[in-house]
């Protein structure tokens, strides 16, 4: 297994998938590297089909897919041993309790009977499922069901976990806990996490990389840090005290700054200083009587990047489309 796990987790090359005349994936090429990768896109972008193609559930019209070096369509058993999936759709076997459901998933993944039960309890404990685990799955709350589903996906300790809308229906505390578990698995246990979601703040919070899929094509892919970097390098400074005086102090030291309003209050947008200029910022703040709370490179919200990408995709599509044809998907840009 080690050799397989050492390979690149997911490699798709010019993947095309059609349902009848409709092309759902139109030449998708991407790589999913170890760490946490987010897949975002509007409804109907082809995210679910992309995930299905990674699992070998659909036959590709063209192109090549490799998961840990294996062809998912020809070696589905091998691939699914290496992958755990949390589907978006609520799926359970009515009549089984939470722990039985996880144990069943473990058995289906090849764990021996006693080991499956032990492991099921272990991961349910880690997911903080509590005594709810003994209730039939169909009677569980959405949050607990999501925990059971997540536990069932990781019970066989796969090197890669694919999650489709993992925070759907979770309250803020549970949502935070779920994101924490994903981060732990990626950072402490070396798992590759692939999250397909609409919740962009979640992606920005935990993902290392993001892939934007629209109209069956990869429109944007890269690290979150690179994609959210503003066009001109700027640092954001927040603090308490007379920020307007700080603007003039900074200007006097050759560091242009403007007063702006951030999500949490007023802030200063300072042209990113050279490393040797950072001390000057602190000196200016001291002389202006401002206590700095934070001073960090500015980031554009991922949502802004996402919307710009979709707008660009829409424009490209309209250019390609004959005059007068209907513009489907425009609602996504509204």
């Amino acid at each position, binding site marked *: 297994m080690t050799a397989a796990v050492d390979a690149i987790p997911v490699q798709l090359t010019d993947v095309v998938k059609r349902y009848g005349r409709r092309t759902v994936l139109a030449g998708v090429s991407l790589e999913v590297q170890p760490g946490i990768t987010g897949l975002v896109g509007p409804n109907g972008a082809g995210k679910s089909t992309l995930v299905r193609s990674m699992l070998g559930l659909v036959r590709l019209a063209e192109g090549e897919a490799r998961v840990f070096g294996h062809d998912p369509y020809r070696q589905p058993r091998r691939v699914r041993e290496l992958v755990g999936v949390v589907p978006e759709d609520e799926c359970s076997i009515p009549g089984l309790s939470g722990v039985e459901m996880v144990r069943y998933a473990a058995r289906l993944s090849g764990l021996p009977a006693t080991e499956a039960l032990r492991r099921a309890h272990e*991961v349910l404990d880690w997911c903080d499922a509590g005594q709810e685990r003994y209730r039939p799955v169909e009677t569980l709350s959405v949050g607990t069901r999501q925990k059971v589903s997540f536990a*069932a996906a990781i019970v066989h300790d796969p090197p890669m976990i694919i999650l489709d809308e993992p925070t759907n229906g979770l309250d803020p505390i549970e949502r935070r806990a779920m994101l924490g578990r994903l981060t732990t698995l990626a950072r402490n246990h070396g798992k590759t996490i692939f999250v397909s979601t609409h919740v962009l703040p979640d992606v920005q919070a935990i993902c290392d990389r993001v892939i934007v899929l629209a109209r069956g094509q990869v429109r944007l892919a890269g690290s979150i840090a690179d994609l959210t970097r503003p066009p001109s390098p700027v640092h954001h400074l927040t603090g308490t005290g007379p920020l307007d005086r700080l603007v003039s102090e900074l200007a006097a030291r050759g560091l242009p700054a403007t007063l702006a309003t951030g999500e949490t209050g007023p802030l200063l947008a300072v042209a990113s200083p050279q490393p040797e200029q950072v001390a000057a910022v602190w000196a200016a703040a001291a002389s202006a009587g401002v206590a700095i709370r934070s001073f960090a490179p500015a980031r554009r919200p991922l949502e802004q990047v996402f919307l710009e990408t979709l707008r660009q995709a829409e424009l490209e599509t309209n250019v390609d489309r004959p005059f007068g044809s209907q513009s489907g998907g425009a609602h996504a840009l509204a």
Partner: protein
Amino acid sequence: MPLHDVGYRAWNSQRCGPTATVWVIAVTGFRLAWESRWLRRMVFFAWSPALIFAASFFAFEQAVDEGRLMSLGEAAERGKNLDGVGMLGTVLADALGGDPDSVDIESTRRLVWTRLLLAFMRAPQALLLAAVVGLVAPTLISRDLRAKAWLVYFTRPVGRREYILGKAVILLLLVLAITMLPALALWLMGVLVSPSLAVALETWDLPLRVMVASLALAIPTVLLALAYSSLTAESRIASFAWFATWVALWIAHGALTTADLVASIRAEEQAAAVATGAEVGEVWAGEGSPPQFQRRPEARPSPFRRQFRWLARATGIDTSLDRWAWVSPYHSLGVMQAAIFGIDRRIRSWGPPAVTLLVITAGSLVVLAWRVTAPARG
């Protein structure tokens, strides 16, 4: 955080193979199905016909032990119901063939046991099987489609083959529990109540025939039921299709057989009329009463056979060719079982029903293979 929470730990050990997966699906599915009170009642009830047949085995072996076989046969010939249901009497009368001097106990026992076992598996058990399978099978795949539980299977190392086999084994276990097990228990009881345990050696092939006949009964029915279940997310529709298939084709078979019977009677009447020089349909204008139609003795069924012709066919008493058996799964299965028990080995008897059952089996497999992964394919 609970005290027993040890955090996330890696797991890397030897995994089980696909055979274990089939067994896991089967055992879990069986356990879930067994939670139905109705199913437990049905299976319990399905064993009750065995008691009646056990009485027949006991009466026969008692008669052999006490040397009353001839009187038993003579009484049977007179049409008396020796075991209260007439089954043993009729079977025995047919077995002895009205020649009391040439009775061989061993061959008579084999014939009687074979026909009793066939009648048991054919008449009550095949009908109960339809009911039990109709209760369990429709939900097996349709519920997975409805609850999207197919994702539980096909996002894990489970292939179509393991999934279908696992579901089929759930039904096979049930079917064998109500056909094979009671039939084997009957044979064992017959051995235990017989004068000598050497009877087990004389009839060693019967348990094997029971097993083969049970599988011949189980495989097409189980696959057909699963195929119906895979075609819809509504188990009620699958249930309806299942029962409708049995009933509608039974009625079709009955209609075709009756039409044949009427045609043959007309042909015989015509032949009789030709023999007496009268035109068919001609009004008798002679003196005295019109000539009576005389049917050949072997063509005239006994009252028992007329009333329960399907049962007579089931027991192998009536071995006349059922040329429409292939129309109905129930009758096809009966003809196949009769062939397996060695009662009617004519290929023109079991050939067409065998083709029907093969078509059902192959068609069901194709439907299953196509349907079970259909949701995953989008």
